């Protein structure tokens, strides 16, 4: 189906749904690179005007990537819950945006709606939203998951502690792990990006964190972010795997670029579930995504990067994840050029994921070749805090010495928790209190409790 409209005396035509969505998308470098962006500011608003009048039902009739060619489209269409969709079935995209902002759309209503929404519907609505809207709707959308801690509760902001080291050195990783724990970080996960995919190294890292967890008697879960095939191999060997990790994207071809299939994810999800390592929940998968990943793999099918990102969340939600985060500023300036584009994309991803029922976190970050700096990460962190974000990534000093990019520091999160009155995950908060790392005002004092001191020697 195609659409035409006029704005300011000019006529605009949109060839199909993916064209309409792409040209409605607020400006970002990746869509320009892909050749799908609006060619002028006026064309963008013309597209948004048409999109606002499009019935939500249309998204069930026209796929942006053909059903026959793509297993992500099939997953989206085949798992759509028509009953859950009923409350918004008669709405247009613009009407859906208004409804999301309405008082009627409260937390319980939004949770019940999630299985009835497709990624393309939520992406479309988000394209009509400003930053304030993205925050306001996300704030009342809640997705709660658990393993040894509970993530996503109101008034909480958890952290992934990311103690990476360029040669996977055990002492170096322990240094960053300890520094994070001393700053109250690690309640979402202690997650290491290994320098190598070698199974023996991955196993050693898993054992390192699991050993620290048991010595400290701390409610944390660990993850070594290696390819799912490596984790499967280690699961067969009986390794202490809390969480299966995989990078995923919004098309079958992009997932092939990551070397992963939905069947492999099903197999790994089942294998990790059988271990029953959780205490407060049984969510055993962790996914990372990011706008631009499909384009980067030349697997975007002419669809804009934000819509494809939302489709990646449909992949995630099929495997009951504990955590999903967009690595929003990591992929580089060819996809999100500057701080303004990164800010908006982070908030879009966070909202779209949560509306689909996915436990969203954000890696608030930038690379040194992007037009961004620490002021931009502060701004995104504060807005995500206001939006009720589940978790963010933290590294010592915000400087990841393995992946060579800047994320948040432990101190950044301490500051925003105090500014906005946010607290760590409840089980972890209790543990921090028990070892003296939380005072009566919810602040983290500068001291080294004995059990952690023992880890340091």
């Amino acid at each position, binding site marked *: 189906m195609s659409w035409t409209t006029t704005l300011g005396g000019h006529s605009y035509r949109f060839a199909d749904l993916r064209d309409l969505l792409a040209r409605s998308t607020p400006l970002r470098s990746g869509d320009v*690179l892909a050749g799908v962006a609006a060619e002028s500011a006026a064309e963008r608003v013309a597209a948004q005007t048409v999109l606002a009048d499009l019935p939500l039902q249309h998204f069930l009739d026209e796929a942006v990537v053909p059903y026959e060619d793509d297993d992500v489209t099939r997953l989206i269409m085949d798992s759509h819950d028509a009953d859950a969709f009923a409350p918004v079935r008669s709405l247009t995209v613009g009407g859906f945006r208004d409804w999301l902002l309405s008082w009627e759309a409260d937390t319980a209503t939004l949770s019940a709606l999630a299985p009835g929404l497709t990624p393309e519907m939520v992406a479309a609505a988000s394209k009509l939203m400003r930053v304030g809207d993205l925050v306001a709707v996300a704030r009342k959308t809640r997705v709660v998951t658990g393993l040894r801690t509970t993530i996503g509760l109101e008034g909480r902001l958890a952290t992934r502690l990311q103690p990476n080291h*360029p040669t996977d050195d055990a002492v*170096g990783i322990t240094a960053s792990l300890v520094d994070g724990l001393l700053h109250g970080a690690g309640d979402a996960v202690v997650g290491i990006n290994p320098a190598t995919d070698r199974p023996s190294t991955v196993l050693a890292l898993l054992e390192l964190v699991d050993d620290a967890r048991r010595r400290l008697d701390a409610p944390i879960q660990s993850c070594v972010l290696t390819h799912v095939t490596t984790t499967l191999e280690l699961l067969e060997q009986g390794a202490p795997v809390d969480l299966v990790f995989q990078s995923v994207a919004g098309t079958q071809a992009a997932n092939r670029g990551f070397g992963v299939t939905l069947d492999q994810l099903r197999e790994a999800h089942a294998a990790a579930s059988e271990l029953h390592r959780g205490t407060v929940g049984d969510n055993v998968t962790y996914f990372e995504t990011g706008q631009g990943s499909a384009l980067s*793999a030349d697997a975007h099918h002419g669809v804009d990067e934000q819509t494809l990102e939302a489709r990646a969340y449909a992949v995630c939600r099929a495997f009951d994840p504990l955590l999903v985060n967009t690595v929003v500023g990591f992929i580089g300036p060819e996809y999100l050029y500057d701080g303004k584009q990164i800010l908006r994309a982070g908030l879009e991803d966070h909202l779209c994921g949560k509306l689909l029922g996915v436990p969203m976190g954000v890696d608030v970050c930038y690379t*040194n070749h992007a037009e961004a700096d620490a002021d931009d990460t502060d701004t995104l962190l504060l807005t995500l805090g206001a939006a009720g974000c589940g978790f963010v990534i933290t590294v010592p*000093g915000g*400087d990841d010495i393995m992946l*060579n990019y800047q994320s948040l*520091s432990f101190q950044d999160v301490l500051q925003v928790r105090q500014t906005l009155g946010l607290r760590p995950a409840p089980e972890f908060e209790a543990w921090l209190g028990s070892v003296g790392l939380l005072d009566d005002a919810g602040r983290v004092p500068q001291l080294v409790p004995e059990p952690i*001191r023992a880890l340091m020697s």
Partner: protein
Amino acid sequence: MSADPWETLRAATRARVGLGRAGDGLSTAENLRLAAAHAQARDAVHTPLDADAVVAALGERAGPVVRSQVADRTEYLQRPDLGRRLSSDHGLSSGEFDLAVVVADGLSATAVHEHAAAVVDALVPRLEGWAVAPVVVAEQARVALGDEIAAALGASMVLVLIGERPGMSAPDSLGAYLTFGPRPGRVDSERNCVSNIRPPDGLTYDAAAEVLAALLTESFRRQLSGVELKDTGAALPPAAG
């Protein structure tokens, strides 16, 4: 008990552990140190490749200098597609090679200036009996430019040594990407990567060469690269520093 519990741990990593605080946030001194490191990394991104110096350092192993289709650094940052395409005037001619080696600026020419020739010098003697093409130096290049270069050279495999995106502690980190059967259209999961070649804090030249030689040999034997090829053979090099 040590007076400073950080003493041992700090020596094992360049991670910014144990930073000074002001309330919940970072102290003035720490903020200035972070700003200075960011400034250095920003500058590394924009330093141009000195191709003549790289050719001189490679000595008799040096081959031609080529460019991608990118015009300048600003375009490079926004158009990775052009950074993967070989300029039409490359002048490469086809031969019979087991391996093409490409030294590419990527996002840090500084890394190439510091480390690339030394990695080549450590690696090539470990590849006894291999027909290795003269080393191509590539400007404004992405990893996948190696596929086009290797195809033009008629090589069975390609190894691209490329400047990685500069981090605040590491403006000069070199990555090595190995691809079997290089041709335009190869995807990332069909490559194997050894990253953080950057002595003394990252991998040493000998350690990197040892892992790469093992990977190359196994890749050639199994006629594939990527996620199906795990580097189970070589031992993990010891951490330096």
